[in-house]
């Protein structure tokens, strides 16, 4: 037994590629088979149709699903645009909110304050997603905390509950930690000497932020935006819970077509749209250097 082990370790030492192969095969196989494989199946099935009487899938190739999605007489482009708009708004909001916080954590706060801020940023992630969304439902409701506070200082009610604005607020809250962390990592990596050099060259703090810190932090912001953007793009629960009568996301349509309608080919076709959007987004993000900041 011991000799066999020795022989194996000797072999692995003599042939380092064998070691690499052994280490990489399981995760690579899982990635290729489970992840890319299911994506491929999804994509292929989007070119099929369904028999709307028996709900059986009919395997002849057609572009009908895509034609329906890209037809302007249909609501699907509009729904995709709404999803995209909210995802962009959430990303922008989170970037604006996260930058000062991350800057303070990385460059100003002492060790204990930093630790406390870290815990506070991550704390919401310890509770269930649903709990947080339902909490917002109560906060925004007609008799919720916001209206209570507004009325307390003599202001009229807000009517944000069940609107697209409510979705924007809730998504921005949900995904903020995913923006704070990469921005923090990027800011922390900026050497102090750069800032000193900037000051030595006569730059005021505004100029230093604009010309030194922001460009160096940008990859972090873009990395964070990948999270906030893609998480919003794929969500369907928040629109159901806090959205209004016109708050359908791509995910909601996919969900309803998979259910009683059993039109999996169409759902697959529509699900390819966010995939396409994310593909383009990742290409841009790579150009901006986001992957070095992850």
């Amino acid at each position: 037994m011991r000799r066999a082990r020795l022989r194996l370790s000797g072999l692995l030492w003599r042939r380092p590629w064998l070691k690499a192969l052994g280490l990489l095969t399981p995760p690579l196989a899982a990635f290729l088979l489970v992840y890319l494989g299911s994506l491929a199946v999804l994509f292929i099935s989007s070119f099929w149709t369904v028999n709307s009487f028996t709900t059986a899938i009919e395997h002849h190739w057609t572009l009908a699903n895509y034609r329906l999605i890209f037809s302007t007489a249909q609501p699907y482009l509009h729904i995709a645009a709404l999803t995209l708009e909210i995802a962009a708004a959430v990303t922008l909001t989170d970037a604006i909110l996260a930058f000062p916080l991350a800057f303070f954590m990385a460059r100003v706060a002492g060790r204990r304050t930093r630790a406390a801020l870290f815990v506070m940023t991550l704390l919401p992630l310890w509770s269930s997603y649903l709990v947080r969304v339902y909490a917002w439902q109560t906060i925004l409701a007609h008799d919720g905390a916001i209206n209570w506070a507004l009325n307390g200082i003599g202001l009229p009610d807000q009517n944000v509950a069940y609107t697209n604005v409510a979705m924007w607020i809730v998504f921005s809250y949900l995904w903020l930690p995913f923006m704070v962390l990469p921005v923090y990592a990027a800011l922390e990596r900026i050497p102090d000497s750069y800032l000193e050099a900037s000051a030595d060259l006569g730059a005021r703090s505004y100029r230093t932020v604009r010309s030194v810190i922001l460009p160096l932090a940008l990859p972090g912001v873009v990395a964070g935006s990948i999270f906030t953007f893609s998480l919003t793009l794929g969500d369907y629960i928040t629109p159901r819970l806090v959205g209004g009568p016109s708050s359908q996301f791509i995910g909601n349509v996919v969900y309803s077509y998979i259910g009683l309608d059993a039109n999996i080919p169409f759902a697959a076709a529509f699900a390819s749209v966010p995939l396409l959007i994310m593909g383009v987004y990742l290409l841009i993000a790579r150009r901006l250097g986001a992957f070095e900041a992850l």
Partner: protein
Amino acid sequence: MRRIRKRHLLGVAVFAAVVAAFAVPAAAVQAGSGLPTKIGKGEGKLVVIEWPAYTDPSFANKFEKETGCHIVRHDAGSSSEMFALMNANGGGGGGQYDLVSASGDASLRLIYAHDVKPININLIPSWKHFLPAFKSPPHNTVNGVHYGVSVQWGPNTLIYNTKKVKPAPTGWSAIYSPKYKGKLTVPNNPIQIADAALYLEQTKPSLGIKDPYELTRAQLTAAAELLSRQKPLLKRYWNYATDEDASFKNGDVWMGAGWPYQTLQLQAAKVPVKEIVPLPTTGWADTWMLAAKAPHPNCAYKWMAYVTTPKVEAKQAIVFGETPVNPLACPYMNKLQKGSCAGYHLNEPASYYNKIKFWKTPIAQCGWQKANDCMDYNAWQQAWTQITG
């Protein structure tokens, strides 16, 4: 496992021979269709997809004790979820599920997808006492073949906050009128199109709507237009019954379409709400359907027989807030809750039931037109996405 199946096969063969020998007229049971003619010994287990509380322990515990069939529950939140579960893993319940408590918007879908199989209705003793409307309703019986047994039903109701909505509403026009703009809610479900169609059947006879579930393209378009005009009046579409409850509770919503279940929940929470059932209305009727690959068919038959007995029907009706299909449940209901038999309309004449249009899956075949040009569920789903998108 194999032994059971062998015995089962043998049983089926024997029964088929018996059926052939006596040449039973093909009324409900078609000769040679392989339907069991008696319920065998229980398999010890029963796996169901159900609306929450449809196998409530308050009445299911007794069944488990008597039959030895231990119930495993999978609660579903929507008809979509039920259908998806039944249709997964090769369909027919995937060899995992025995029964599903399908509502009328899903039941035909399950039948035509071959996810459920015919049952011998004569093995359900209470069936012959059922109200006529629920013996062979079009949502669970096709060409005289029963694909399950009706269990309970309820009307779609108009719920309103008595403090805010004055005077009280009198008809369905209330949810299409701008008077309470921004304070209304209706279900997020394509079957809601039938409500609009039924309303148009009354208010716009020129459209020629005969059945709110069998709409031609023009009729579907008209119903969708009505719903598109309704959308700006709504606070939200509700997905789950609890969503609607929450919106009534916190004052976001004053009036909406719902079920007696929500009214009961809200009244129990001391929210000042009442409901009316403006006739005609749509309604739902649920059916216990037998999965095509049910692994425990005997326990399933035992459950269908048990749950339709008057006492159990009464109990389930009170627990869930719905109406039995077995009128013999009436005295038991009154015993459990005074006046509940009349309260849930179990004592109404047949003419009352004709005014409730029960959910059924829209299919292309129009019974009233004897043609194939009605809009099917896929068209309804597309129209609904268009309305809510």
